[in-house]
């Protein structure tokens, strides 16, 4: 260790960052994509129809009710998911048959045309979609779930400790907000690293710390086991205490047919209680029965902690029976709020885009940190006229592989979605295989090529991988950019435009890197570099 508190913290920050950096880069990257998981789902199932004029919630409810009344008048329950929030881009209904003796009845799903109520069977391709992609940020891939989350917990701890030590190292956090000195080599990288870290510091702290709370029980099970006893029942007892199953009290079916009140007529009361456009999901228990109950549920954006609030109506009379709010204790509320902040389900479009930018900023923070490790040491060794050691050789190559290769691998996941045959039975699995085969190639490539060259070549590959995605989309589906922009399909168009944006950034990086490398070769001996600062 070095002398002095700040110096030793700088050492700790540097090494914690290095040991966990590459995987954390992947975690931040795929986790950031989780903020648009449903949008990625939508792009990856281009068969899914888009409805430019879905109609008001009342019209959608009327259409859905008419359909359900016809196909399943005596079901145990109905579920209606309206177009409106992020939850569904189409009007989806499902119903569960009344249980016949043992077990629950079967559940059926159907997408409806929101205007005519005609059933639509669009036959979506099999895909992992955004769900499989964002779950990699804690499940990784090809590793058993229980092992993967332990790895992630350790990495999260390292991330958090690296952040706290990073803050300690800083003398002037406020000044860093306004400090960026471009084209100064090492200094610029450090400024960039600091700028990315401090501008979204609360975000980084919150997502990292709240990340812990998902798997604390699995990470430190000894005290719960001591208290509740070993085995599965320990976890059950703990979780039942923390999250007691809370549901409004609902009566049994009376087995007396009474016509349902029009669901649309309930929305007046819902608008009074919650405000317009908040409710997008409706569940009906025992439809058509004298004891029918209608449960109206709010959108995810209604609050950070996403409590299971519901308005309960009498299905026959249409009267509001209960304004149900689960009652949690403070520790559980904290838990819900922290996890809610982590998932970001509460965010509206503006906040969601901010979250995306902060996530990308965090990814870049990790990337610049990794680059700094190698740059600092290379500069110092060159200044002392000493040979570069194996550590720098390896870190240089792994940096190129991870920082550029991982985004390329994610692009491969999207390419596979469009290129694999639609009827292929294992296509969802092969999307993931395509991603990791690409990643393996990306890790192998810089090992056989000078990293300066590999860096530029891979950046151009990344540019092509993202820049051509909209072209691929246009060639393989009918949902090209012109079409989606014309229709006002902003999710489909947003994906294509974001891909173009990524390609543009990658192209700028490629040009910059090749320019600075050209200059460096002209200068030959980087004398100026020796004067630059040392980070640690």
């Amino acid at each position, binding site marked *: *260790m070095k002398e002095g*508190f700040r110096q*030793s*913290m700088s*050492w*700790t920050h540097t090494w914690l960052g290095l040991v966990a950096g590459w995987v954390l880069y992947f975690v931040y990257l795929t986790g950031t994509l989780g903020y648009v998981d449903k949008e990625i789902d939508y792009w990856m199932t281009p068969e899914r129809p888009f409805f430019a004029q879905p109609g008001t919630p009342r019209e959608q409810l009327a259409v859905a009710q008419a359909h359900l009344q016809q196909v399943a008048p005596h079901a145990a329950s109905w579920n209606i998911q309206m177009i409106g929030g992020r939850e569904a881009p189409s009007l989806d209904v499902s119903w569960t048959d009344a249980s016949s003796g043992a077990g629950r009845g079967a559940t059926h799903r159907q997408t409806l045309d929101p205007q005519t109520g005609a059933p639509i069977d669009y036959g979506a391709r099999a895909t992992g979609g955004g769900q499989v992609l964002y779950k990699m940020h804690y499940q990784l891939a090809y590793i058993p779930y229980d092992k993967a989350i332990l790895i992630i917990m350790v990495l999260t*701890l390292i991330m*958090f*400790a690296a952040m*706290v*030590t990073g803050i*300690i190292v800083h003398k002037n956090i406020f000044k860093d907000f306004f400090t960026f000195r471009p084209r100064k080599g090492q200094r610029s990288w450090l400024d960039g690293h600091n700028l990315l870290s401090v501008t979204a510091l609360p975000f980084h702290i919150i997502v990292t*710390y709240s990340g*812990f*709370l998902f798997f*604390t*029980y699995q990470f*430190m099970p*000894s*005290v*719960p086991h*001591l*208290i*509740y006893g070993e085995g599965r029942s320990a976890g059950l*007892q*703990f979780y039942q*205490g*923390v999250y007691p199953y809370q549901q409004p009290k609902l009566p049994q079916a009376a087995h007396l047919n009474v016509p349902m009140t029009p669901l649309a007529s309930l929305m007046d009361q819902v608008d009074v209680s919650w405000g317009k456009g908040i409710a997008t999901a409706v569940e009906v228990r025992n439809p058509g029965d004298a004891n029918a109950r209608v449960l109206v549920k709010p959108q995810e954006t209604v609050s950070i902690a996403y409590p299971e609030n519901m308005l309960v109506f009498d299905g026959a009379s249409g009267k509001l029976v209960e304004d149900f709010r689960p009652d949690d*204790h403070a*520790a*559980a509320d*904290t*838990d819900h709020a*922290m996890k809610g902040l982590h998932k970001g389900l509460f965010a509206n479009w503006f906040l969601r885009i901010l979250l995306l930018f902060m996530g990308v900023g965090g990814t870049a923070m990790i990337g610049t940190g990794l680059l700094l490790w190698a740059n600092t040491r290379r500069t*110092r*060794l060159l200044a*002392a006229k*000493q040979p570069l050691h194996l550590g720098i050789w390896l870190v240089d190559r792994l940096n190129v592989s991870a920082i550029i290769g991982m985004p390329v691998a994610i692009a491969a996941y999207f390419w596979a979605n469009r290129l694999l045959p639609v009827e292929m039975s294992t296509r969802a699995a092969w999307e993931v295989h395509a991603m990791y085969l690409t990643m393996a190639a990306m890790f192998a490539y810089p090992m056989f090529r000078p990293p300066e060259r590999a860096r530029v070549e891979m950046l151009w590959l990344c540019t092509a991988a993202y820049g051509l995605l909209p072209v691929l989309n246009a060639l393989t589906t009918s949902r090209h950019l012109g079409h989606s922009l014309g229709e006002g399909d902003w999710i489909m168009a947003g994906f294509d435009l974001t891909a173009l944006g990524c390609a543009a950034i990658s192209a700028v990086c490629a040009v910059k890197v090749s320019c600075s490398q050209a200059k460096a070769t002209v200068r030959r001996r980087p004398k100026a570099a020796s004067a630059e600062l040392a980070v640690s």
Partner: protein
Amino acid sequence: MKTLTAAYRWSVLSRCIAAAAGGYALVTLLQLAFTAALPWDYYKSLLFSSQTGYLYYTGVIIWCFAARTARRAWLGLAVVALPLILIDAWYLLHRSVT
């Protein structure tokens, strides 16, 4: 660049073990102490201790790398662990009696 001595390398390894294993042990001890000391239902104290647990863990990591020597790092952990062990031992004995 100065060459690193074997003693320095051992010191780094020792601190890493202190930070990782020592931190894990200390937070576990603390978790049990919270359950013993807080007048709440078990699941609430458990939830509270795991919600705050990583702050202590991070504190331990910082201490282990900030201490002047590796020996001092371990000593510091022991000083904190001792009262926790006493509380936990008292609690476990008391609990098995009642």
